[in-house]
């Protein structure tokens, strides 16, 4: 795939559970310490992550598929249900053992619209904004036995808006007050999305590195002599999380991919 941190493990697939926040009697701290849910106990259901609250409800047939016929009309809109109706818990477990001088980050590539993250009883608030990444250094809160409990309470956009009876482009436009996708209030080509795409909508991963990690490299090419002469400019941020000066050697290597997996060095 295009870009890879080579120590990244994505947390996706069938291991996630979800439940409506108003139906869960435990706190995030209890869910990730004394009362972790299991898939067979109501109100917990199998979750779609990455995905949205509505994707999870459709998958579990709690609501009809909104894209068939007029079924979208059968799903209550967030304007009528209130935000808490589409405020959901997502829960999973993951295994991670660190050796000396290793560090672990929990990464969310997209949350719509904000979230409270609980890992083994520790809470972190993820700030608002659909189009931003979040990375939490969880090195010190991983379980010594390697088995970790993660619960994420995802909140919808602050201004989900109300769909006027006549519909229209972007409904009542309230959604524009937030930094989130705007089509969700409906457009001339699209019915409103009832949960406004609330959810863990992009990749969740953990990454394990040594004392120094590579952050957001930037690659730029410049050309001269009619593209015969080219330069690759490479800049990166580096973070040393240890308590001592790190003596490093930093390498960049460029190989031409001739055909799949055959490289010319």
């Amino acid at each position, binding site marked *: 795939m295009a870009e890879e941190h080579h120590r990244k493990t994505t947390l996706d697939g069938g291991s996630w559970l979800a439940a409506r926040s108003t139906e869960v009697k435990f706190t995030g701290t209890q869910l990730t310490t004394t009362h972790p849910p299991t898939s067979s106990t109501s109100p917990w259901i199998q979750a779609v992550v990455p995905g949205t609250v509505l994707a999870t409800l459709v998958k579990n047939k709690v609501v009809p598929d909104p894209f068939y016929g007029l079924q979208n009309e059968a799903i209550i809109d967030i304007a009528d249900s209130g935000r808490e109706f589409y405020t959901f818990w997502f829960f999973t477990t993951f295994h991670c053992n660190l050796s000396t001088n290793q560090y672990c980050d929990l990464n969310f590539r997209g949350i719509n619209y904000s979230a409270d993250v609980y890992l083994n009883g520790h809470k972190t608030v993820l700030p608002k904004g659909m189009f931003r990444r979040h990375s939490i250094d969880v090195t010190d809160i991983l379980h010594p036995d390697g088995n970790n409990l993660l619960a994420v309470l995802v909140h919808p956009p602050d201004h989900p808006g109300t769909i006027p009876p006549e519909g229209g*482009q972007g409904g009542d436009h309230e959604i*524009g007050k937030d930094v989130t996708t705007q089509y969700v209030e409906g457009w001339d080509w699209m019915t409103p999305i009832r949960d406004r795409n609330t959810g863990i909508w992009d990749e969740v991963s953990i990454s394990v590195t040594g004392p120094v990690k590579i952050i957001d490299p930037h690659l730029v090419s410049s050309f001269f002599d009619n593209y015969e002469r080219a330069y*690759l400019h490479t800049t990166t941020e*580096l973070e*040393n999380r240890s308590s001592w*000066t*790190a003596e490093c050697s930093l390498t960049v*290597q460029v190989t031409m991919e001739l055909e799949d997996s055959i490289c010319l060095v």
Partner: protein
Amino acid sequence: EHLQTRNLSIPAKSRVQYTFPELFFYKPNLWWPNGMGKQSLYNVVISIDVKEFGESDSWSHLFGFRKIESHIDDATGGRLFKVNGEPVFIRGGNWILSDGLLRLSKKRYNTDIKFHADMNFNMIRCWGGGLAERPEFYHYCDYYGILVWQEFWITGDVDGRGVPISNPKGPLDHDLFLFCARDTVKLLRNHPSLALWVGGNEQTPPDDINAALKIDLRLHPDFESVDENTKSMG
């Protein structure tokens, strides 16, 4: 010549920015849009070793050598695109998103974007009311040679030109908008298919946001390349 190692010391609990001396390539295989040539991709790997620890982190990205320029053409009033100095007749499609419940998958992206390439398209415009598309979307655009016009999250209807007039000053939190825009640029900026960042759909973002985006997205003077055949268009 395509391998370079540099030694550096990084103080405890600190974050630094490092730029390698540029790597020279003679007649690199260029990346071209669909229908104009091959989409040659190089694999760039950055790794860092720490003394008495070993390899601490590594990162890789497929990279295409290409130069994309565009400007408003006086004769037509339209935006004229050039790739590697060659003018491109743009054949593009509108894109909202793969799925209204955000069930985004590599398989779906591959299918959808290959479909656009098979239709002989060479650009996809990501509409401002949809998403900042994902790295997987851009990977397949890199692979199939589909240039991407990526709009930020402003639309005329919702931001000041709709009926009724609403949000004339865009979203409530301009700092949040700019934070999201900067983080999105960092997420996507290494993809050769990324051709143009656009403030919004049928609407200019509020002045402060627009001014900040223009400053953030300027090409750094270090990367200007003036070629006797194609004056750099800035």
